[in-house]
Every structure is written in C-alpha cells, then in structure tokens.
C-alpha cells in the first residue's frame, strides 16, 4: 500500500503535523492493549460495585423510570442493520430506519395528542429547551414562564442556554401544598402577560401531581403565548388525558420509559411534538413520506432547510445526531404493547402506586401530599428526607428521591421524598419497603 501511495513509511503520511506536536511513542500513563477476556474482567468488576435496580426493592423516579422491557426490543436494536447504520442520508438504502422513524413520529404524535412529531432529540431536558426557543421564534416574544413543578434539572438546562439568547426565564419555587404539591396553576395564569412567549408546565409534575391544563392553555392562547407541556413519564399517557387534548401547542418528553432502560441517565430519548402549522419552526430531523421513480411509497428526511447542515448559523437548532436507535427501541416497545397493552401497563402502574401510597401514608409521621397522581407521589416524612433515603439504601432499599437533593437550597422542601412505583415492584418489595422505612423512621 505504501508503494502505491509513494511513501516510504506511515510516518511520512503525517508530514503536515509540525514536528513539535508529534508524539514519539504511545502516550504515557495509559495501559497498552488488552485481551477481550481481560477487558471484560475489569469492567465486570466495576459494574459489580453498583446496586442494580432489578436486585433490590426499587422506587426511584423523577425523570427516569424502571419498566419491564420485552426481550424482543433488545433483539431488534441489536440487528446490525439498525445498530451499525448512519443517519439516513442515502434514503434508497435506509428505508428500514426511515420507515421506523415515520412510525415513531406517528406514535409520538398520537400518544401526546399532537399533529406531528420529530424524529427525536437527545433527552427530555434538551427537548424542553428547544421548545422554548421554538416558541420565541413563533411568537417573537422574550419571556418564558416555567412552572415550579417542572423537573429542576430541566429548568437548569434551560437556564444554561437562555443566558445568552435574550430569553427571559421566570421560574418559581415549588409549593409544598397538600392536595396539589409542586406548582400553582392559578398563579402561573396570573403571571402571563403580553411579553410572554410560552408557559412550560410538566404533567404529571415532578411531585407526581396530575392537573387539568385546559384553563392554563386557554389563558396562554388569550395572551398570544404558547403552552409547552413536558411529560417525563410517557407511560402516563396510557391513562391520563393527553397534553394535546388539554390544548398544548408543543409537547416535549422523555421517552426513556419505553424501550431504553435506566442506563444511569443515558442514552435516553427526547420526544418533540407540535401542531402542524408550526412544523417549519421545529428543531431536529423530520421523516416524511414520498414516492420513488417507479411510484412506490418510500420515506426520506425532509424539511431540512431548517437544519444546521443547510442553514448553518440560521438553523432552528444545532442538533445533528439525535437518538435514532433509542427511538427504534421506543417504537418497538410501544408496538409490542399496542393500545391495549399500553393502557393495561398504565393502569397497572397507577393501581400499584395507589396501593403503596395507601400503605406508606398509614405509617406514623408519614403524609401523602398528592391528590391525583399517576405512578409517582410525594411523601412528607416530617423530618429531613435525604438521610432517610441514604439509610434506606444501606438497608438495600432504593426508596425514592429526596426533594433536598433536587432543591438543596429550599428549606421548605427538605422533608419531602418522591416515590415512584411501576409494574416491576412486587408485593415482597412493598413489604421490604415498609419494614425498612419503619426501622429508619423509628
């Protein structure tokens, strides 16, 4: 090969690299290559230091949920034709990925009650930020009002990127109100003014509270603002009225619950859906139907004049690679469930959560804050919750997330703990939880 090239050595091929930047040999301080067996041994050892969700009574939620993922889903995403393909730039040989994206977009639009959905974003938090930018482009107004019931990490991501864009973000402090913890829709409505581009609200909110957003949507629309609804537990839409039915203009979500697994935070799946009239302001890739030269139906990436590789600094987003394979996992899981299975799964989650909420709230010193909820609820433990969560973990129970971890600065919230219950929790898990909490609280 060197003879064909006309070079004496591989070193000659690096002739453009200034001599002072060339390293003589392998970089110091790093090991040399290792066998498959040795690598596996080292990584298995690391993995063994973690307490896994499936081996323990597990009730952690707040934006990531432990659901059963059918074995078929992993088989599908390990098909090399899906796993090792690139973004479908050559549609004639990427119809598999493209048809899946078309089906995914349809599923997401129907699930959220919207007209169109894109081919995915990185995760729920980045999807929410993109939605706020989109609302500003549509309304040409600067102010975004974020409900205090939105996941604080999501709001943090939004604040990071809006520091430099001229958007004004108003985000309140959560209320710890029995019956409706998290946000207060009446005061959100009162804060809408002529400068408001959008109101961002999460449903169920971080505290698990489920609300009717219709009055908020009406108030937004009266003021010429858009309603952005965030859904972090997408399974809830098998039981709860969709954001679209309540008047949302943009729905963003975290799709991790279907197909992905917990994965210590990623890769997850950003969902993004909106009204058809706004689609040209949407971020990210869109797959559309068309025909080929022989008249057969086929699919392509479309409306790409919104995107960075065409529009460069005028693009609607800088996103390029998104979460294609996780979208496939989501779509496969949802098609295995179907409407019947999704409704069953959602009903099961809700019923199990109601059962555990009733058990725990009967314990002395423990108060259930929620009125309506789906599969997640907030308990007031009457004492600082963070050490309680840690002590539960020492007893091998992953009991929830303390509000103190999420809002370390808010004194009023420190006694709160958010508990998530999915179809994976057994009666034995409930018993273990109650026993452990009883001991920790004693």
């Amino acid at each position: 090969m060197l003879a064909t090239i006309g070079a004496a050595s591989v070193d000659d091929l690096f002739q453009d690299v200034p001599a002072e930047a060339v390293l003589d040999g392998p970089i110091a301080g790093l090991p040399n290559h290792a066998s498959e067996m040795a690598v596996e041994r080292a990584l298995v050892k690391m993995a063994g230091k973690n307490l896994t969700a499936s081996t323990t009574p597990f009730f952690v939620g707040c934006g990531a949920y432990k659901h059963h993922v059918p074995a078929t889903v992993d088989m599908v995403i390990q098909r090399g034709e899906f796993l090792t393909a690139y973004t479908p730039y050559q549609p004639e040989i990427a119809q598999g990925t493209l048809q899946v994206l078309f089906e995914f977009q349809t599923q997401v639009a129907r699930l959220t009650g919207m007209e169109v959905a894109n081919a995915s974003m990185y995760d729920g938090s980045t999807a929410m930020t993109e939605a706020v930018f989109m609302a500003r482009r549509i309304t040409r107004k600067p102010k975004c009002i974020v409900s205090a019931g939105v996941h604080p990490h999501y709001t943090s991501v939004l604040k990071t990127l809006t520091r430099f864009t001229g958007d004004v973000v108003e985000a309140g402090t959560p209320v710890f109100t029995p019956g409706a913890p998290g946000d207060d829709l009446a005061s959100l409505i009162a804060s809408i003014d002529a400068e408001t581009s959008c109101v961002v609200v999460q449903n169920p909110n971080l505290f698990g509270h489920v609300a009717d957003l219709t009055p908020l949507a009406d108030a937004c629309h009266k003021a010429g603002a858009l309603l952005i609804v965030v859904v972090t537990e997408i399974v809830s839409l098998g039981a709860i009225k969709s954001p679209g039915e309540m008047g949302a203009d943009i729905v963003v979500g975290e799709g991790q619950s279907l197909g992905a697994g917990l994965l210590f935070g990623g890769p997850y799946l950003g969902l993004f859906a909106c009204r058809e009239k706004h689609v040209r302001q949407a971020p990210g890739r869109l797959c559309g139907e068309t025909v080929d030269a022989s008249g057969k139906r086929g699919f392509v990436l479309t409306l790409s004049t919104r995107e960075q590789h065409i529009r460069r600094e005028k693009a609607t987003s800088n996103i390029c690679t998104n979460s294609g394979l996780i979208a496939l996992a989501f779509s496969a899981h949802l098609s295995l469930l179907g409407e019947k299975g999704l409704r069953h799964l959602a009903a099961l989650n809700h019923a199990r959560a109601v059962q555990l909420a009733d058990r725990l709230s009967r314990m002395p010193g423990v108060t259930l804050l929620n009125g309506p909820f789906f599969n997640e609820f907030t308990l007031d433990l009457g004492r600082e919750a963070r050490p309680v969560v840690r002590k539960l973990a020492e007893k091998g129970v992953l009991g929830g997330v303390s509000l103190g971890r999420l809002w370390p600065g808010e004194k009023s919230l420190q006694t709160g703990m958010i508990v998530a219950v999915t179809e994976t929790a057994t009666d034995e898990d409930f018993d273990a939880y109650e026993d452990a909490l009883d001991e920790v609280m004693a």
Partner: protein
Amino acid sequence: MSTPMNNVGRPTRLVAGTGAVAETFTGNKALMLEEPLLFERGSLDTSGVDLPPVPPVPDRLGGLGRDAVIGLPGFSEPEAVRHYTRLSRQNYAIDLGIFPLGSCTMKHNPRLNEKMARLPGFADIHPLQPQSTVQGALELIDVLADWLMKLTGMPAVAMSPKAGAHGELCGMVAIRAALDAKNDPRRVVLVPESAHGTNPATAAFCGFTVENIPANDRGRVDLDAMLARLGPDVAAVMITNPNTCGLFEPDLKRISDAVHAVGGYVYCDGANFNAIVGRVRPGDLGVDAMHINLHKTFSTPHGGGGPGSGPVVLSAALAPFAPIPFVRKTATGLELVEEDTAGTHANQSFGRMVAFHGQMGMFVRALSYMMSHGADGLRQVAEDAVLNANYILASLKDLYTAPFASSGPCMHEALFSDDFLDGTGLSTLDLAKALIDEGFHPMTVYFPLVVHGAMLVEPTETESKANLDQLIGAMRHVATQMLADPDAWRTGPHFAPRRRLDETLAARKPVLGFKDSEAA
C-alpha cells in the same frame, strides 16, 4: 435391483429460455420483502406483552382519565420480530460492508462493547440513586475521563454532552461564560468555510456573530486572512483539525497563539480526532476546547442516527466553567458534584447541559474499546486510518479529480470533486447512486462546501486492503463507464429497495405521519 427415482412432475434440470416475470403478486422479490406500516398491519386490540392483572383499586386520576382512542396498533411478538427484521433488511450498515462516509467515521463496532454496556451494573442503575450505590459507575466515568484527558493532553473534561453538536454547544457556552466572567463583550466567532454546519449554528446559539474565513488553494485555512481578521472583537475561532477536506492544519498552533494573544479562545471540532489519536495531542496545539465524538473515534455504534456522545476536553482557562454534574475524588471514594456541592467545588460552573450525567451506555462502550486497544493500539488506529485513506487517494486520483492531492498526503479521508464528469451531465449524486447499485454505501457527498460536487471518502482503519481494492475497483468501473456512456447512468439506483426518491415532493407536501384515511 434398484427402482429408478420417479421424476415425474419434479424437474431437476434447468429449463431453457428466460421467461422473466415483470411483477409479483405481493410486490416482494424473493428475499427482498416489502413491509407495510405498523399502522396498516397491527391492530388496536393486539398486544405482544404479557402483564399481570391490574388490582381492582379505585383510580385517583382526578377525573383526567384518557377515554378517547389513542390509535396505537400493536403486534404479537412474532409479528413484531418479523416487522423489524424485514425493515432492517432495507438498511445498509457497517455490518454489511464498507461505509466510507467522510467525516462520519463509520468503523467496525466491536461486540464486546455491546456486551459490556448491557452488564446490569451499568445498564440497570438509576441516575438519582444514592451515590454510595453507584460507585462503580462513577469509577467508570472517572477512568474514561482520565483516558480522554491523557489522549488529548488537556487538563479537564466535561462528560455530560449528548452528542458532538451538544459538545460544541458545551464548549462554546464555556467560552461565553469565561468572557462574561471578565465582562468581556467580544462576540465574533471566526469559522472556516469548510466547517461542519453545526459550528456556525452552535456559535449563533451562544449569541455570537459568525464570520467565515476562506480556505487557501491547498485546502487549509487561509492563515493570512485569519491573522488579519483577529482583533479585540474576536471571541473565538472554531477550527476542525484534521479539517473537513481531510487535511491537517499545520498552522493551528500559530493560529492558537495569535488568538490567545488577542484575548480569544480556540474551539477545535474533534470530529476527525480518529486521524491523530495517539500520535498528536490537541492540547499541544493550543486548543481551549474540543469535543470528542465517542461514536466516531471510539467506535460506539451510530444506530442509524444516534445516540452519540460528545465529551468536551477543556483547557485550564475554561475548566472552572465546566457544567455540573461531574465526578470528583474524595477521601472515601467518588462523588458527583451536583447542585448542593457546586457552591464549594464548582462555583463558576455554568450549570447543567442535560438532566443527568451524559451517555453512560456510550461511556461503557468507549472505555471497553479504549482498554482493548490501549495506548499502542489507538496509535495504530490513527496510522491505519491514514494509510487506508491515502491508498484510496493514490488509487483514484488519476481518474477522479482530487483537488488537493498535489499538496501532499491526506489524513483519514480522501476528498474528490466531480469536475472530471464535466460535459457528461452527470454529477456526484449520480455517482453515489451508482455505488449503491454496486453494493456500497456512498461516500459523503456535497460536503465540504469548499469543493464543487465534493466526495469525501473515509474508509477507516477497520477495512482490509481487499475491501479497499473492491471499493476502488467499483469506483473506477463506475467512473469509467460514466465517461464512456453518460446516458446509462442518470437514473440509478436500480437494485436498491427503492429507486431514486422524490425529495422535492416530500418537502412541498409534507406527510410526517400516518393518517388512518390512507389505509387501503
């Protein structure tokens, strides 16, 4: 005495004649199977998942139950397996053959990495579990961070960005935060013409004004134009090295020094790190921030459009502004610096880039790849990638227009233009579609923008000489035939699951989801 076999009605010899059938009843062509949409094939009352019964408890949904039909058809398990298996066969993939997309680095995805990412200790843990229960996960992030810092010669790394463009955003936000901390109002970002589209889009998102710097006739940044533009209004330069023409920017250190001298920062797009890993450290070239696409250099699978992962290495000047959360060593183990401890350990951090800690699943795969290759093997990755690309350049430059071949060897990708097709009425697109019929995924086309009808070929280090020779043979054959008989090459591909698709129609009348009225 044996009985002769009865062959009546069971012909065993080939039949003379061609007797071609134009179309089949099903639309299938033997192993090429058509697959309807989920919405045409599934049904609302089919489910392939077996769930326990729902306990009879009164609901507490506050009257907000979802009554209306959602419209989500389901499959039984065998139906689902077939649906997705059939669809998968309409995709080209690195598992099927060489995938020479320039700048995208489609290398083999080792299966050990997939196995390791699925270890329950990594895959089945929650991002908000108490930190005492995820020490092994924090260790993995810490070890990977150490590899990335050593390989790049940089003192810090932000692990949470979700993909390359998100890493760019993280790096540029850090630059903006560093400027704001000094009340420095400079807002101009210089971007070479050959840059990825994400660079100007990212800069614009951080409130910067983008100005283009031209390329010289050797395919590099025009050094004089760059130096002449530098001044007190320049916040940063975004530069890709090796650049998108597949060439090393030999003046990067000089540019960095000059940018620093006027108070600006240097962002390096690390999309092409694969070409220099183990041989050159960007930190030695004066870079302040560089994202690393783990799915390119470190072999995590691209999945037909993600997930990616884009950790960003940072200079000492930018490190204080890095996002939370990050892993920190303590006397007793590892801890995540989050909101509660940011005041103590990260009081200048610009905040979060994402909800959680980044792409853990990709981290496991990337570290598995790094440990397998080691410092010595990663160095060879760069050498083999560059050797393979130069072999392609040398084997095609007599036939294909190679605009920068006279300026010396390329790095990991070879750039051609379609000038050699002038007068045929054919272009890069026709050539790409012809390669599809030859059983290859085409190279990157019409990028970078600095070359007319660009064709950017990146073979990667994982292709053998035999594979390269096959691609070269096909590319030579197609080009030669196109020059000899142009009219035969205007309508490809002919043998793919679909003929050329009408993208104009798709954009003019967008159909972005299935409508039930379409059902046959």
